[in-house]
């Protein structure tokens, strides 16, 4: 299970910034995502309109989610599948274990699933003598290294090629020690060969779900490698793990969202495999699982309805927000200290594990707004982070120094005459201290702030003075 280290975000971030290997990996990777998304969006002139449509479909679904969940479950069952409703992570873990036990499972293959990380499925299965095998290439190496994903669609975002080579040499001990990985493809081929046998031997396959479709009772996975499809096709039992907000009403609704997903995520027009699963094997079918189970998970989501965080349930987990986030770009995902990093994690994590533990995350934002500007379903992420900051303040969770200074600022800000006088004094003092220079490299009492940037010297008076002057001129 992911150990929660969100309360230590500041220490985590400081360590991440000093980690040369991580900085190398982040530096290489982040430009690629931005470029590819930008190109894909440029190729589809209707992209902006589709964002509004995506937002509206999700809003409609959430406003009627009770109806759609019931319709969906009835249709899964009509197609011969089983739905397991689970309020908590504990219930979901128990449901998965029971299905695996009934199937007599020794090994379980897994497609990439963030809800599985949230629930801690792997540790739970291991503790009960069932071996989980991650089959997504990035998840596979993370499992070999006993780490956790640092990105929601690229789990090994934090690793460099040499990390892959070293881990494969260390763990694949049956292969010659001196083998050469001359290209990235050689690493891929070795993983493909290793995992083939695991796919064939598995008794149960567990995948996540990008969407659930009420109209047909289908779960959808979106992948590039084909590992998710092998996972859900070869074993006798398929379990799809899905949280309740994955729901959409119809296939046509899913089509609209699928036009947004791959473009926002990897910058592809469409992912290689978009696969719809509905029930188990039909009479006459030559392959496919005999049993199909959906573990439908709430785990805190229903509490978000009717709160200022309801819109977060629109999220389709594309990762565009973290790919475009200057904070994620420098700290990487592990610093966030739980399953979901970046701006979406900064909003979601406090709702799922508590603002007392994750209060630092909504503060780890420059409010630059890029996350909201690229979100395919237009979630107002900065506004929600501000809501968390307010709650943190109201619940007296922020440090004494922060509270005292905010209190002082509020006192001054609410008294216009005092505020104007104070800013005038400050502008004048800073102007004198500058002695003709354009910017301060350091300032007394603000060493922390100026360590990473310069403060431009104010020129031309305060805002109010300049405003008054312009008004006279007009």
């Amino acid at each position: 299970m992911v150990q929660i280290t969100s309360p230590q975000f500041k220490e985590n971030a400081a360590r991440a910034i000093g980690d040369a290997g991580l900085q190398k990996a982040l530096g290489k990777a982040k430009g690629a995502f931005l470029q590819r998304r930008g190109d894909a969006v440029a190729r589809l002139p209707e992209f902006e309109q589709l964002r509004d449509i995506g937002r509206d479909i999700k809003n409609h679904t959430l406003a009627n989610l009770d109806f759609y969940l019931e319709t969906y479950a009835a249709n899964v069952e009509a197609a011969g599948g089983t739905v397991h409703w689970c309020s908590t992570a504990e219930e979901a873990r128990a449901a998965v274990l029971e299905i695996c036990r009934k199937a007599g499972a020794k090994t379980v293959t897994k497609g990439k699933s963030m809800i599985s990380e949230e629930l801690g499925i792997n540790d739970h299965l291991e503790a009960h003598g069932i071996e989980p095998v991650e089959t997504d290439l990035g998840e596979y190496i993370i499992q070999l290294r006993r780490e956790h994903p640092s990105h929601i669609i690229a789990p090994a975002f934090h690793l460099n090629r040499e990390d892959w080579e070293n881990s494969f040499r260390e763990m694949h001990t049956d292969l010659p020690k001196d083998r050469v990985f001359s290209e990235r493809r050689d690493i891929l081929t070795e993983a493909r060969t290793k995992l083939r046998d695991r796919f064939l031997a598995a008794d149960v396959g567990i995948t996540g779900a990008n969407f659930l479709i009420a109209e047909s009772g289908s779960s959808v996975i979106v992948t590039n490698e084909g590992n998710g499809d092998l996972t859900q096709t070869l074993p006798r039992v398929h379990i799809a793990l899905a949280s309740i907000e994955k729901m959409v009403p119809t296939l046509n609704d899913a089509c609209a969202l699928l036009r947004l997903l791959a473009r926002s995520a990897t910058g592809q027009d469409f992912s290689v495999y978009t696969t719809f699963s509905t029930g188990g094997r039909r009479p006459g079918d030559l392959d496919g699982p005999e049993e199909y189970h959906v573990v439908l998970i709430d785990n805190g989501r229903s509490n978000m309805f009717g709160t200022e965080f309801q819109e977060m349930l629109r999220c389709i987990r594309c990762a565009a927000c973290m790919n475009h986030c200057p904070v994620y770009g420098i700290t990487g995902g592990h610093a966030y200290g739980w399953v979901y990093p970046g701006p979406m994690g900064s909003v979601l994590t406090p709702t799922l594990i508590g603002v007392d533990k994750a209060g630092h995350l909504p503060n780890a934002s420059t409010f630059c707004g890029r996350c909201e500007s690229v979100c395919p379903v237009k979630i107002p992420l900065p506004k929600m982070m501000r809501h968390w900051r307010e709650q943190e303040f109201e619940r007296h969770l922020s440090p004494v120094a922060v509270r005292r200074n905010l209190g002082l600022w509020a006192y001054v800000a609410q008294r216009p005459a005092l505020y104007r006088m104070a800013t005038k004094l400050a502008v004048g003092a800073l102007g004198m201290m500058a002695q003709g220079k354009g910017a301060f490299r350091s300032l007394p009492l603000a060493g922390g702030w100026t360590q990473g940037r310069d403060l431009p010297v104010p020129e031309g008076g305060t805002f109010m003075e300049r405003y008054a002057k312009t008004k006279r001129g007009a």
Partner: protein
Amino acid sequence: MSKEAILNAIRRGLKRGPLPADQRAMLEARLLARPRHLIPARSRVPRPDQIKLFIANVEKEFGSVTRVADADDIPGAVAEYLSQQNLAPRFVMAPHPELQALPWSDRAMLEFETRRAEASDLVSVQHGYAGIAETGTLMLPSDPARPTTLNLLAETEIVVLRASRITGPYEDAWDMLRAERQDPISGGFMPRNVMLVTGPSRSADIEQTLELGAHGPRRLHVILVDDDPAALPG
């Protein structure tokens, strides 16, 4: 029970009880009407251009296409592709009547079995249900004549597709499936599995750099049969 707990928590948050009958009826009508949303202009073009767009998109996604004038040319196209790729003339084929009816005996060196795929199969020949021009995507639904493993286990997958089965957007392909199929279990139209496949398998997990040939096929080849006079290049 967890089901009731979840539904009630959602309703509490939405500040309402279970939906009244008239609102349920509205939502049920929406499910039946399944409104279409914006369809991008790129695929709303004349038939010959839709086919061209499909081919261009398959190739952009690292697949390949051979266009043949007649179904009888398919065995020759398969033989030629395998020889070009230096592959042995051996494959596993979908037990689909249209494929089984082809004049395979014209190409006596081709060896094949009709069944699901096994891990040892190097080449598979699948029957394509539909093609989607918008992104060069194949629609491959599962049924007894189209096993899913053919799309996954072989290193090379060849898909035979008729040009008349190419649609512009995804929505049109779903409508085809809706109109043509009835499921023996649910009575609806959805088969157990529908794969939308766009190019061969790949991964960018190593340093976010794209490599082809992850767990699925390394090569995806489409043999397109020109059975649609309206789709021929003018």
